[in-house]
């Protein structure tokens, strides 16, 4: 039994790596935030293009491609192929940069779908009112539809951010020293898994509050809409 506990909770084995693990988790957070920025911006562009003219088909193709292909595969393809491309900037991208760009590209597809649901949930009368005032399609989207849509999809957007943060662990496969990469490397030296336990704790400390906040927002929204429990006899 002692050996079982020792395997996961041997603090002496993990102590020398705590600094590296903390730095690794900082890398994780940076990648998550940068990827989220890309995904939020690109996702919104895709969601809006999805409702406009012929470019709609390009937007749909993009969204479906990245929803269908594993993020891990996207990261690996970018990481192994980019250094051989004779394209400035692209050929010099580091693993860290490929990590947040790749995850940003993938999550833009999910987030575009979230925005789309939000845009479609805004009452048609809003568009009609704006257009009847002489506003163009573009002005209507920017000033009337998108602001209302974004507010409505805040909970699912946060949900995707949590999922994205967890998927940052994938970058350990392309030689980025995120918290998972650091923990694995240490485990390979010590044959003890406590560094991985520490990685789990880092994740819990970061994501559980997000999940908690998310639940609060949803609960508040439900109250605002006056949806209580249905009374049973």
């Amino acid at each position: 039994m002692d050996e079982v506990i020792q395997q996961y909770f041997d603090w002496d084995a993990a102590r020398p790596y705590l600094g590296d693990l903390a730095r690794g988790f900082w890398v994780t957070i940076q990648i998550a935030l940068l990827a989220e920025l890309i995904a939020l911006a690109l996702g919104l562009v895709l969601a809006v293009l999805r409702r406009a003219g012929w470019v709609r088909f390009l937007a749909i193709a993009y969204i479906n491609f990245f929803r269908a292909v594993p993020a891990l595969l996207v990261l690996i393809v970018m990481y192994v192929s980019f250094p051989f491309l004779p394209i400035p900037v692209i050929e010099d991208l580091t693993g860290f940069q490929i990590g947040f760009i790749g995850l940003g590209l993938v999550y833009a597809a999910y987030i575009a779908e979230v925005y789309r649901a939000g845009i479609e949930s805004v009452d048609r009368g809003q568009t009609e009112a704006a257009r009847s005032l002489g506003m163009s399609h573009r002005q209507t989207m920017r000033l009337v539809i998108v602001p209302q849509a974004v507010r409505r999809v805040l909970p699912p957007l946060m949900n995707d951010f949590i999922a994205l943060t967890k998927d940052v662990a994938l970058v350990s496969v392309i030689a980025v020293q995120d918290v998972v990469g650091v923990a694995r490397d240490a485990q390979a030296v010590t044959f003890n898994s406590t560094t991985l336990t520490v990685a789990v704790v880092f994740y819990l400390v970061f994501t559980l509050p997000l999940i908690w906040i998310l639940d609060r927002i949803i609960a508040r929204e439900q109250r605002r809409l006056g949806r209580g429990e249905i009374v049973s006899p």
Partner: protein
Amino acid sequence: MSSIRAAGLVKRYGDHTVLAGVDLHVAEGEVVCVIGPSGSGKSTLLRCLNLLERPTEGRVFLGDQEMTAPDAPVDDLRSRLGMVFQSFNLFPHRTVLDNLTMAPVSVRGLDRQEARERARGLLARVGLADKAGEHPARLSGGQQQRVAIARALAMDPAAMLFDEVTSALDPELVKDVLDVMRELAGAGMTMIVVTHEMGFAREVCDRLLFMDEGAIVEEGAPSDVLAAPKEERTRRFLSRVLAA
């Protein structure tokens, strides 16, 4: 100048015909009320006039400009035709004042400060000067509808379209909205009013149209049409409405 003219308007959805050839001429300063049973095409007629729905056939003119022309500046023409809806459709994420300034600033390029001042004047005109900073959700239906009228007026329209604007209101709130419309009509605004308010129609409008099955069945001075309808269908409709 700012008259509204429609010629041969037809609107079909698949093989369902909603408008079956409507001709309409509303002179500048004229107030025209449109009555008729639900599904008669009244709302569709209004929505075709500002091209929220594109007519299947026929042409619409605002003044001497054709809205249905292939290269017509539709957004610009729409901005000169105010529309008020049954369901208000205020922008819930903005304050009342912002609801009034959004289009003047973004479409007309009006200076924000100037737009605000004008908006305050319009809110005073509809009796809601003290609600400028509120969000629409905090207003009663009648107040929201008056804001919606002020919002349309903020674009300084040549004419106004009203689509059953009191139908979603509690009875005691209807009067405030009708009073605003009465005042507008008195000030010489060109108006097309789809309504179920027979009292308002009788008292305010210059001409009354009765629509049924996508066509104008009868039209004339409101007192004539209401008191002595010529058509059987008009008579039947009125006896049902006035009995209620």
